[in-house]
């Protein structure tokens, strides 16, 4: 295993109506989903979500939380007919999650593809905002993770792993990595503390909202390692590691490294290639201390007494990864892995020398540079509301109002994925996972699909009394190579199902 594995990114977007802070975010989020879906000819009733295999209360540590003791926000498997929830032709899910519109990318197999499909989600949100703006005041969306007043909403990564990997190994080796990786993946935030009560700048939007090391919850007592055990795949073979600690990234390099380095660390955990104990003494407090230090010089204390910076801790993981890849692949790396290793070393070098050198690659560095420019030019201090306004508007999804997008259009960021690739990812599913089957069925037979989910498509064939559910518990089946010709020669879903049955029969 290299950086390549089945993975994806889910992003909840901040939502507001200009001039109306009291607007109902659930209704607004539904409007966002419906505005996009209806423009694509998707009717919610014809492509809703199949909840049959969802199990949000199943815990990776080997038990299941009782529904009666769960917070209502954890019951994500109960259908609420008032909330929009659709599957898109690119294989993604677009829906209302609590009080936010959320885009969950389709399953992909490389960090680079994950970046493309995450950006496709932002393009979809921007398109929805554009449509809603035709009726003023419209709805604005923000790819960020906090309102700076005590609320946070997530950007989650998902990684398919081998079920046999002991969860304790995952916790042991990932916690130090997550404490440190925010120096690369942080998207930058004005304000310290959940409600920004202390003026200042920090690396991560999310770190102040984490309170425990390990746990099942995602909306309260947020844990560094989330234990939700809902693989959406053959449960005996796979677990899905649900990572809730990440920030929403705009920068391609930061996003690529977030997915790529994490995937590599997981590969080493699966192959038992990490033979050192990097356990951090006080992980939650240290997570926040690292985030609160834009000089990247704060020291992380390990349980064995070692003190090192977050960048140095990441170098330790990088060194382990080099050794692991050399032992397994003897230097013959696939392009995706080579790209991640190259950027990983380059960025750590720059962060060690002077973080400002990474302003083309890292969100938090770029944002800090702009904010510092305002401070210097206008004599502001960190409590000035203009800086908080810039922080929010940085992540506005509109090309002409979002500060990140303005700067990207001016060529100020390193781009790894072209605009053309993003536009293609808006409509076309990835070719090499089951998302291909899901997305293509939605594109080709929209009126003959009753519902879909990560691991199923349910067909409603005209003239047949019962619905037919096609299970897809193997994420690497249903690819273009295996079902592409079949889809091409099936003019309707009835033919497709007949041929599928005869092929498997």
């Amino acid at each position, binding site marked *: 295993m290299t950086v390549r594995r089945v993975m994806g990114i889910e992003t909840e977007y901040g939502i507001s109506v200009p001039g109306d802070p009291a607007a109902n975010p659930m209704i607004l989020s539904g409007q966002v989903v419906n505005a996009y879906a209806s423009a694509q000819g998707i009717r919610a009733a014809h492509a809703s979500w199949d909840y049959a295999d969802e199990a949000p209360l199943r815990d990776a540590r080997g038990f299941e939380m009782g529904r009666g003791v769960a917070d209502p926000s954890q019951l994500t498997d109960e259908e609420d007919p008032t909330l929009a929830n659709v599957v898109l032709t690119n294989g993604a899910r677009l829906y209302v999650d609590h*009080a936010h519109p959320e885009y969950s990318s389709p399953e992909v197999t490389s960090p680079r593809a994950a970046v493309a499909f995450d950006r496709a989600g932002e393009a979809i949100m921007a398109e929805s905002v554009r449509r809603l703006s035709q009726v003023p005041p419209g709805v604005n969306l923000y790819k960020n993770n906090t309102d700076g007043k005590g609320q946070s909403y997530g950007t989650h990564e998902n990684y398919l792993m081998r079920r046999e990997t002991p969860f304790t190994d995952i916790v042991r080796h990932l916690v130090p990595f997550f404490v440190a990786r925010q120096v690369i993946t942080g998207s930058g935030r004005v304000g310290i503390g959940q409600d920004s009560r202390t003026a200042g700048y920090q690396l991560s939007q999310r770190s102040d909202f984490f309170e425990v090391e390990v746990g099942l919850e995602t909306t309260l007592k947020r844990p560094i390692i989330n234990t939700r055990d809902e693989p959406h795949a053959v449960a005996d073979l796979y677990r899905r590691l649900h990572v809730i600690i990440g920030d929403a990234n705009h920068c391609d390099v930061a996003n690529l490294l977030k997915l790529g380095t994490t995937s590599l660390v997981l590969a080493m955990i699966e192959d038992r290639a990490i033979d050192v104990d990097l356990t951090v003494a006080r992980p939650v407090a240290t997570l926040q201390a690292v985030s609160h230090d834009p000089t990247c010089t704060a020291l992380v204390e390990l349980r064995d007494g070692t003190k090192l910076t977050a960048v140095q801790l990441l170098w330790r993981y990088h060194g382990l990864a080099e050794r692991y890849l050399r032992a397994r692949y003897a230097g013959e790396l696939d392009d995706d892995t080579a790209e991640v290793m190259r950027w990983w070393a380059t960025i750590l070098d720059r962060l060690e020398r002077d973080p400002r050198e990474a302003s083309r690659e890292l969100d938090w560095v770029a944002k800090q540079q702009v904010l510092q420019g305002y401070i210097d030019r206008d004599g502001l201090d960190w409590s000035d509301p203009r800086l908080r306004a810039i922080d929010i508007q940085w992540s506005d999804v509109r090309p002409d109002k979002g500060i990140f997008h*303005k700067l990207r259009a001016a060529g100020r960021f390193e781009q790894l994925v072209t605009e053309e690739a993003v536009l293609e990812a808006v409509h076309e599913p990835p070719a090499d996972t089951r998302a291909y089957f899901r997305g293509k069925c939605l594109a080709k037979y929209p009126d003959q699909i009753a519902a879909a989910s990560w691991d199923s498509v349910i067909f409603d064939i005209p003239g047949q009394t019962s619905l037919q559910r096609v299970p897809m518990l193997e994420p690497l089946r249903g690819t273009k190579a295996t079902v592409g010709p079949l889809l091409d020669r099936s003019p309707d879903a009835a033919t497709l199902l007949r041929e599928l049955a005869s092929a498997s029969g």
Partner: protein
Amino acid sequence: MPSQEQSRPQRRDDAPDEAPEPTPAAPEASARKENLDSDIDSVLDEIDGVLESNAEEFVRGFVQKGGQ
């Protein structure tokens, strides 16, 4: 190697046979930084043109319900 762990990490310890990854030469890096510093004013001017007019009201109005 506990004695080494107090110092700067030996990041190449694990990769003695491998040529170091190419990294940008220092002169290029510092030129790049100066370049960024010198054109920050034009960046700020461009941002000024799109900023929401009343920062205080805009910040106050950005209220979210919690999420995951």
